């Protein structure tokens, strides 16, 4: 029953769920995402409580430029789609296609991060620094936490791609791909809320 009974090329249909270890990891990761939901929920609550307290800084309405944020949103949503393609290739045991889609996912994630860094740099120049006001502190903390999650995901998936090249697609590496995909979808969903609560509400209610 150990992980090594399945030789490469004779992978089971869903290699990510073939061992008890893998099933534990998937369940444990879902529970972890439950905790992450509370984490972001609390960050959102803090932001909602403080978002009108702008002090001497610019308002959300003056600051946010929807076209750029919309572009970032599209990049991240598309990257979620490509990570679905990666998992589908995993189910069809197509290693190269899977790696290809993972690379696309990472590139899209990096583009998103680039836009976000530019955005932050731009805001700081507009007089919206981390210490400007309660609004700015909670904005950078919430959006920054999300950005840090994206950065972590990019590094994590890169590490997994390296392992796929070295170890191949096995019942040990498959769950890693699968779990990183769940994680990627999660940070995508968080971004949808950020786009709505921070940016859209900032434009409308600001």
């Amino acid at each position: 029953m150990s992980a090594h009974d399945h030789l490469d090329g004779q992978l089971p249909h869903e290699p990510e769920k073939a061992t008890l270890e893998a099933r534990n990891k998937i369940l444990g990761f879902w529970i972890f995402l439950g905790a992450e939901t509370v984490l972001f929920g609390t960050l959102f609550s803090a932001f909602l409580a403080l978002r009108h307290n702008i002090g001497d800084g610019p308002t959300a309405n003056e600051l946010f430029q929807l076209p750029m944020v919309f572009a970032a949103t599209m990049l991240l949503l598309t990257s979620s789609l490509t990570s679905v393609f990666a998992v589908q290739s995993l189910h069809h045991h197509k290693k190269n296609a899977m790696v290809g889609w993972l690379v696309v996912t990472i590139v899209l994630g990096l583009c998103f991060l680039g836009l976000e860094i530019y955005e932050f740099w731009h805001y700081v120049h507009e007089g919206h620094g981390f210490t400007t006001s309660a609004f700015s502190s909670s904005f950078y903390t919430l959006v920054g936490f999300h950005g840090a999650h994206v950065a972590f995901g990019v590094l994590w998936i890169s590490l997994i791609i390296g392992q796929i090249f070295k170890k191949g697609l096995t019942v040990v590496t498959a769950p890693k791909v699968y779990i990183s995909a769940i994680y990627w979808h999660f940070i995508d969903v968080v971004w949808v809320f950020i786009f709505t609560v921070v940016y859209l509400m900032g434009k409308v209610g600001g």
Partner: protein
Amino acid sequence: MAAHGHTVKRYTGLMDWLTTVDHKKIGILYMIAGLFFFLIGGLEAVVIRVQLMKPMNDVVSSDTFNELITMHGTTMIFLAAMPLLFALMNAVIPLQIGARDVAFPFLNSLGFWTFFFGGVLLNLSWFAGTVPDAGWTSYVPLAGPTYNSGHGVDYYVIGLQIAGIGTLLGGINFMATIINMRAPGLSFMRLPMFTWTIFITSALIVFAFPALTVGLVALMFDRLFHANFFEVANGGNEVLWEHIFWVFGHPEVYILIVPAFGVISEVVSTFSRKRLFGYSSMVFATVLIAFLGFMVWAHHMFTTGLGPVANGLFSIATMLIAVPTGVKIFNWLFTLWGGSIRFTTASLFAIGFIPTFVMGGVTGVMLASAPADYQYHDTYFVVAHFHYVIVGGLIFGIFSGLHYWWPKMFGRMLNETLGKITFWTFFIGFHLTFFIQHFLGLLGMPRRVYTYLDGQGFNNMNFISTIGAFLMGIGTIAFLLNIFITWSKPRNAAADAWEDGRSLEWSIPSPPPEYNFKQTPLVRGYDAWWKEKMEGKTAMTPAEPVGSIHMPSPSILPLIMSLGLFIAGFGFMYDRLIVGGLGLLITFACMILRSLYDDHGFHIEPEDQDEGVHA
């Protein structure tokens, strides 16, 4: 199967303990660390009581007093009570569900070491000379940079953050373990009550601790990086801290008490030699208490000024909790009713728990009444209430559980005479200390104040309370003596050490072998082991043939990862960002190593399974 010749380096001595991923050994580590911090917290309590023994006393200064109450509360809750619960969870849960280990043995070890280093960091503040002094709730603005410029609260924020990671990992681990690792036939409604309560507590941890994480991050950003979450001058909001803290803090007190409910259920049932009365209502009541636990946080904030509607709703929600709790109390009473009760130490602590906890519950309902709370708020009445539920509830439960499972953890029975001395001194000492504090509070003595004037009618009651605290100290010393004396005795505890064991842990040797169950047992009903015994069997029915057993490899990485966080904590605190970055780098490097090198583990072959049984 024997063809898998992965050779794994196995350590002995100290290295074995530093690298272990065995839940039984991690349980013992949690217990040692938890008792150590319990002694520190207890010592702080004794100093507090000595200071309050007579009016205008000057044993400690007012500043030191603030530090003492802050560290007493923080240490007892996060560094003593939580790890002692984790000790029992680790020692018992995999055995009760018929598993060979937890779902994530590596994470289990990581959880212990992060908790440990977080606790050490927090307590090093005593040596650094800047101790947290804003109370265990660390309310802003008192804890904010404007009014608390030293490093004291930084130790609180970063120490708890690191320790909190460990707790969260533990919660995830035990949820996954209980869902995925149960033996065949062990359905949810056949789980022993202790396993049920740990499942619920783990869920509470998973959904409550991240709120604390965010609160601590926000306070840390305010203090270290000049953010404005709680800085009113720049638009911050102080009530926000209260909300975030108590959204975590109220579930936290249920995280503490729910496992005690589980221990009491096991002990009462075993020593009454009866099936637990109303098992399914017990499960339902526990789930309901946990659910309501998330709905009542603002009852800690009645005097903040949220308005009559909020206060009214939170009042009613709080009072509702008395209903499922009452269900539990009656279930224990009916379990005792008509049972042939054995008064062992474990049983005495469990029986002592019931009236004590009821008293804490009654004052809880009194405090839940918002208008009355304006009178009780921040007086010794509140201090009496929460010590009744936390000491009289949780600590009695932990003592009961430690005496009950000690033979299973160590293979030695604790001395019953010393155990009874522990119980009576601790029990009488406890009531002497805290019962009288109800009246002190009603007379108007405020909490968290370092002294009081003569002639207010506080003198005698405070003196009595201090005597009680000494008595509790003697009880604790008796328990420690018991541990040391037992240590020199032979390991001769029977598998079913109390002869009336009901759940799976009593069907295997004391202490269990490294792999717990030679063959995974088949569970045929609630109280699985009792059921087999009643049918004249001497062992569980196996669910699998004897075979090679796969074990996870030991690893030093969890220790180094936690050390990295510890170093990073100091770096950020003292504004040495390079040190902080270096610490985080160590942690991330360990994560990468863990990901790159597969843990193949090793196998224990059937011919090796009979020797070296004692882990």
